[in-house]
């Protein structure tokens, strides 16, 4: 009698736990997902691809990978092949350009294959894709500004090294940064010039600004990416100043090189442009297949790091 009672308790407990266990298992195991990637033009892009593949493997997802080598035609051709063969449950698209996706997205919709957009944006109708998973550039700008505000107690004349004018990464990082420093009257951008996300141009811009402006009047540099920050470090050193000491330096991306500069004490902080978009993208696919409604944008927010150790601890 007592045995039966205990067995009943166990069965009831199992009944409670089983659905939860099943739900936890549902990371998309057994699904086949096509992933059309732009190419491998940068170290960041490569780590993004690696992160998606590792995530798929960990979840037991069968990932079909297609490298478009920077061509939209290749991406469309790969998607059409997946749609025609009907062997994928969903498609993840990292689009190389913004426009020209309507037709292939309609084909996917008609075939009942959900599409999740990752990284860059598309200008197609929102109903044609499940959701968009991408970096929150505004958040990155805000985070950099928040760090700088704290480091300088809200008193700082800032030089901004702008990315390529018109690019979403540059404009949004600028917006987020300005949004936060606007809260502190002592924080102002005294110079803003574009270095096109390139190291040499970052250096030249910084050299020019250091000769035009009294260096003692510059408290910090906010660079829209690490490459320009590394260029600025060179210019600051050549001018006989101590980067990260005389002039604080904060940038965005967290490329491997910036950690060498952090180790050497040449820069102060970097905000990670997160390459870990695979997880949220697979979650979106699973949620969609389970019939859930999703917001049209799932932002992926990076963290700010001031040392290699902190970064390594997270990765």
């Amino acid at each position, binding site marked *: 009698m007592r045995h039966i009672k205990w067995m009943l308790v166990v069965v009831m407990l199992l009944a409670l736990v089983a659905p939860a266990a099943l739900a936890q298992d549902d990371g998309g195991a057994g699904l086949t997902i096509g992933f059309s990637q732009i190419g*491998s033009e940068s*170290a960041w892009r490569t780590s993004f691809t690696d992160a998606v593949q590792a995530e798929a493997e960990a979840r037991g997802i069968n990932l079909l990978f297609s490298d478009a080598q920077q061509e939209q035609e290749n991406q469309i051709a790969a998607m059409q092949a997946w749609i025609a063969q009907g062997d994928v449950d969903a498609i993840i698209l990292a689009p190389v350009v913004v426009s020209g996706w309507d037709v292939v997205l309609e084909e996917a919709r008609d075939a009942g294959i959900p599409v999740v957009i990752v990284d860059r944006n598309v200008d197609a109708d929102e109903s044609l894709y499940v959701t968009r998973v991408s970096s929150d550039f505004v958040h990155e700008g805000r985070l950099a500004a928040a760090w700088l505000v704290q480091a300088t107690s809200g008193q700082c004349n800032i030089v901004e090294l702008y990315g390529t*004018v018109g690019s979403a990464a540059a404009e949004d990082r600028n917006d987020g940064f300005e949004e936060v420093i606007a809260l502190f009257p002592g924080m102002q951008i005294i110079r803003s010039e574009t270095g096109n996300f390139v190291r040499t141009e970052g250096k*030249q811009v910084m050299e020019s600004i250091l*000769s*035009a402006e009294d260096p003692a009047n510059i408290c910090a540099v906010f660079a829209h990416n690490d490459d320009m920050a590394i260029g600025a470090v060179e210019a600051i050193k050549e001018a006989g100043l101590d980067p990260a000491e005389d002039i604080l330096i904060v940038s965005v991306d967290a490329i491997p090189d910036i950690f060498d500069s952090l180790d050497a004490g040449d820069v102060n902080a970097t905000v990670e442009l997160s390459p870990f978009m695979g997880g949220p993208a697979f979650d979106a696919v699973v949620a969609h297949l389970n019939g859930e409604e999703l917001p049209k944008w799932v932002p992926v927010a990076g963290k700010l790091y001031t040392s290699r150790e902190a970064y390594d601890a997270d990765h």
Partner: protein
Amino acid sequence: MSEQLIPRLRNRVVDPRPGRGVWHSHRAVWTVLALLLILIANRLISANFFSITMVNGRLIGSLITILDGSAPIMLLSIGMTLVIATKGVDLSVGAVMAICASAAVVMVNRYEAGATEFYYTPGVIILLAVGLGALCGLWNGILVAVINIQPIIATLILMISGRGIAQMITSGQSPTFTNDTLAFIGRGVLFGLPFPIYLYLAVLIVVFLLVRRTALGLLIESVGVNARASYYAGINAALVKILVYMVSGMCAALAGLVIAGEVKSADPHKNGEFAELDAILAVVIGGTSLSGGRFSLVLSALGVLIIQSLLTGLYVSKLHPTANLVVKAIVVLLVLLLQSDEFRNRLTRLVRRSS
């Protein structure tokens, strides 16, 4: 026949009247004036634009920044001037910069990792990179001169594929390096001045002597004016063309090494990106016609300084970066108009009529 033709050709390409040669032409005066105007404008924008100070045994100032920052385009413009003088154009220089820089960085990293073969020593690597540039030029030259493909298309092939080749060399990555010899080309300091300035001055002088102290300059101009007539005059037009593309390739290799040295990184994606356009612009500002013929290396160099001074002016101005490209375009247009006899004549006529 050919003895008669060559003096006549000379009349066509270099006006022999006193004070009317390439150097003394009106155009040179207006180009120098344009440069001075831009420098004065920069001085008005930024009070200490002309100030130069010595910091840690190194001269610092906006003028030094202009001279140093000019280096890659200056090197490109030397080769580009010769190519354009033969009625050609070399769109591939930016990609060749990336190829040669990538190859040099990959090799120097093997040297740092302990490779002992003689071709992995930094000095030899630099020579090999320049040789690789010459090889790229040879490829362009053969397409243009032997297979007779239009230069703009022939060099477009390497412009497109070159970045891919550079990325293959580095396996798609952007490797960095620490070797001081290779870095010296881009960031070394000699007697207080950045090394790239000496580098391009040396190349400029060598190429200048090569084309002006030998018949080579004349041959280049004659091929540009009329390749067929030059051929009938006994000039090996194909060889001349191949040669100028090879010079252009070698200049591009040096420009690529300057950029790689400056940032201690190969960067096959960004090294030399759009550099070909600035180089062509500098040559045109310098007065060499895209339809070939008369050319001036010195005026092309002034063209580079004009572009670089303009850029530095934009950097020190407090203009929002969104305005940069438009301002650059307007100033370039003004410089070209200032140099145009036709435009100046019309302007003076207009002013005279209204007064």
